[in-house]
């Protein structure tokens, strides 16, 4: 378990006064406050670090213990002692900072802090204070592209409660939907908080996606590109036969209307599938093929 230099975190000297600590803390807390750094995981982590450092250094008892034992904390016996000692109540946090992301999945305190000062003391400043409206929950759901090809219902378990969700077709990667009232309970008659679900969509198909449109490169043989013919192409709904015109250039784009991905919140509407023909120049010719090409060359083929 790694030692954390709380003085370094706050950018102060080991001999810093309580005032200096407070100033340094407030300055950094302002800088990393989640309300001023929306959707910034790094800022949130820094905010937690800074809060933890302040929790220790602004409390004379904790600071003393930290100064004395801090660096030697890797010693097994100290670790054991702390584990046995129950958290000494205390911890009226001097920060009073709150923020709205009480995801609950990440620890509020580092392992280092917990081993030295015991488990989560009532760190009042951490997480969302429930004053009336319940706290918001944040969840992440991993799905594959084909999972969102059709609107489907899924049952999720969040904090022990089952929620029946309707996942609309065509939802985008990293899109967040709000499920009202499925967050934590409110107090004193307040409404429940909301549940925010962020979807992580993995595309493991042969198609590239851009909204409701799909893109794919299709290789056609040189002879077919020159002479024309038919090819069979895979779409999301099965194979499609396509006519290739004679004299089709490499890079030619073809649009298959309505063969794309479902449009988000537009039931029954689909985007388009764009195919790009790639014509590979044949290598490793047989003797016969080579001589045929040489014959073609003699005809001054452009």
């Amino acid at each position: 378990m790694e030692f954390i230099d709380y003085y370094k975190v706050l950018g102060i000297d080991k001999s810093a006064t309580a005032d200096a600590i407070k100033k340094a803390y407030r300055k950094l807390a302002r800088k990393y406050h989640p309300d001023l750094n929306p959707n910034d995981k790094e800022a949130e982590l820094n905010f937690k670090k800074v809060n933890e450092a302040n929790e220790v250094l602004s409390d004379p008892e904790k600071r003393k213990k930290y100064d004395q034992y801090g660096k030697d904390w890797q010693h097994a016996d100290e670790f054991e002692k702390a584990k046995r000692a129950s958290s000494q109540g205390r911890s009226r946090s001097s920060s009073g900072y709150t923020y709205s992301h009480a995801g609950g999945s990440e620890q509020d305190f580092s392992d280092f802090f917990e081993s030295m000062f015991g488990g989560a003391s009532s760190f009042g400043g951490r997480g969302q204070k429930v004053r009336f409206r319940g706290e918001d929950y944040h969840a992440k759901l991993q799905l594959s592209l084909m999972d969102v090809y059709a609107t489907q219902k899924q049952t999720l378990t969040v904090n022990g409660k089952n929620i029946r969700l309707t996942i609309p077709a065509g939802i985008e990667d990293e899109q967040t939907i709000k499920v009202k009232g499925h967050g934590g309970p409110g107090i004193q008659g307040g409404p429940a908080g909301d549940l925010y679900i962020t979807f992580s969509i993995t595309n493991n198909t042969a198609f590239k996606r851009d909204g409701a449109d799909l893109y794919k490169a299709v290789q056609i043989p040189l002879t077919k590109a020159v002479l024309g013919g038919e090819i069979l192409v895979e779409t999301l709904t099965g194979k499609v036969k396509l006519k290739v015109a004679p004299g089709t250039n490499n890079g030619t784009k073809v649009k298959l209307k309505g063969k794309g991905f479902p449009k988000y919140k537009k039931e029954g509407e689909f985007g388009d599938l764009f195919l790009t023909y790639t014509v590979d120049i044949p290598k490793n010719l047989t003797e016969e093929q080579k001589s045929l090409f040489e014959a073609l060359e003699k005809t001054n083929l452009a």
Partner: protein
Amino acid sequence: MKQENYISVKTFCQHHGVKESFVYSMYEFELLQIDDSKEEALLSTDELPILEKMVRLHKELDINPEGVQAVYHLLQQVEGLQEEVAALKRKLDRFDF
């Protein structure tokens, strides 16, 4: 209009330890709506998440009402830009860079 979907400004302020004048400033700056058709000024519970954020900005970060308006405006711009960047990233994803 169900009563349980509204909270009085007074009650909100009591719970959150903030002055009513602050909430009225937010209303004055058009950052939220207040229903004062009844005897008591009411807030829709839909407005609570936003108002809670404003209270945090004011109480924890010592930002005055004018500042809150400015911050709120900037946050909307930031979040808009973040969405735009995310959409562009998805578009670029199409081209194997």
